[in-house]
């Protein structure tokens, strides 16, 4: 278990980042990572040879998908606007907090499968083949989802230029 500690511990921060960006909610993201680590510990000796990072992301992603399914079936979806802003993170400055909030809100409008591909590749630096492995889909599908995710996020960002998401429309004074 010593080697596990050495190989897995440095990866926990990026697992947290992926989970948070995927789930948006800090507490449930950390719960997910905790679940992931527990599973990783119990299955350490059964893992197939290969990259530990991709293996951990696979476990985490499967847990996230289950979570999404459960939430969807329970219908307990938390609308973006009602989530506690602090639960997103402890951004250093107020300004950064605004951008952070804004980017996550736009990211959250992407379908889950597109969001996952974009995060794994653009943020977590997984190769296309690794991402395909983690998500259990062919590389071709990874590429098309990545493409759709980027187009979609661009629309969100450009749409924001005309109607910023962080500006609350004033009630019309009549």
């Amino acid at each position: 278990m010593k080697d596990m500690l050495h190989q897995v511990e440095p990866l926990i921060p990026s697992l947290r980042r992926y989970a948070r960006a995927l789930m948006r909610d800090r507490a449930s993201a950390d719960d997910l990572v905790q679940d992931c680590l527990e599973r990783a510990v119990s299955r350490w000796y059964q893992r197939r040879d290969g990259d530990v990072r991709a293996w951990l992301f696979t476990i985490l992603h499967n847990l996230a998908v289950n979570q999404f399914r459960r939430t969807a079936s329970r219908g307990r979806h938390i609308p973006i606007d009602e989530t506690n802003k602090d639960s997103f993170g402890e951004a250093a400055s107020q300004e950064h907090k605004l951008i952070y909030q804004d980017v996550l809100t736009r990211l959250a409008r992407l379908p889950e499968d597109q969001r996952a591909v974009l995060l794994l590749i653009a943020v977590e630096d997984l190769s296309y083949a690794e991402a395909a492995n983690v998500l259990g889909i062919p590389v071709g599908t990874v590429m098309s989802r990545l493409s759709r995710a980027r187009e979609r996020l661009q629309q969100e960002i450009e749409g924001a230029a005309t109607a910023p998401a962080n500006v609350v429309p004033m009630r019309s004074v009549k």
Partner: protein
Amino acid sequence: MNHRPITEDDLHAYVDQALEPERRREVATYLDDHPDVAKRIGAFSGQRDLLRTVLAPIAEEPLPAALNLARIIESRRQRPFRLGWAVAAMLLLGIGGAGGWIMRSEIQASPNGLVALAQEATSSYSVYAPDHERPVEMRASDTAQLVQWVSSRLHHPVKVPNLSPSGYRLMGGRLVATAHGPAAMFMFDDDHGSRIVVLTRPMNGTDENAPMTPHAKGDVAGFAWADGGIGYSLVGQAPPDSLRPLANEVRKQARTI
């Protein structure tokens, strides 16, 4: 110059800095000549930078106590231990309590044929499937040696069932002791960590050919059958409906040895 055409995949790989240097130059040249595409790709690169910058602080946060890996390892280590002792205690109580001086008659009254095989498979599942340290003795990476070993001990060519189309990957296997001689056990798991066990051994004259028969003990269910003197049982902690197709698949594959 004859360049390979630039694909959409190339453009994304350009954004993700995943291209070989030569191809990267080709794409860069292409983008110089196509400002519209360059604008779109520039926007994608901007997104990538933005996401990375905005999400970076999450990875800098101090880890909460719940994510202390050393502690998770420690608490896990105690769990299989307790479970292992529970199983051992049950076995000891079973043998010591109910057994003891009636041991001789117990053995004589022990079941034969398919019923025995089903019990052996269930016991193997109960003992080995919850094991976190060493559920199998030989891992899937040593399948060839595993097959050679169990085949020589069973005096019969054993084939490892392939259940990956059904979502179960081979973890490995081991030889297990039964009252009817050695048996080969193979363990599989799916992406959610659910494990199943396939046990096989020669039937030694009883129930040499038997139809697919369900069995269950608590929430551990399974199917046992025998073909041409070789018995099989597939066991898992899952509804029988989900195990039956797996058992059918194992049976089909075993018949084509």
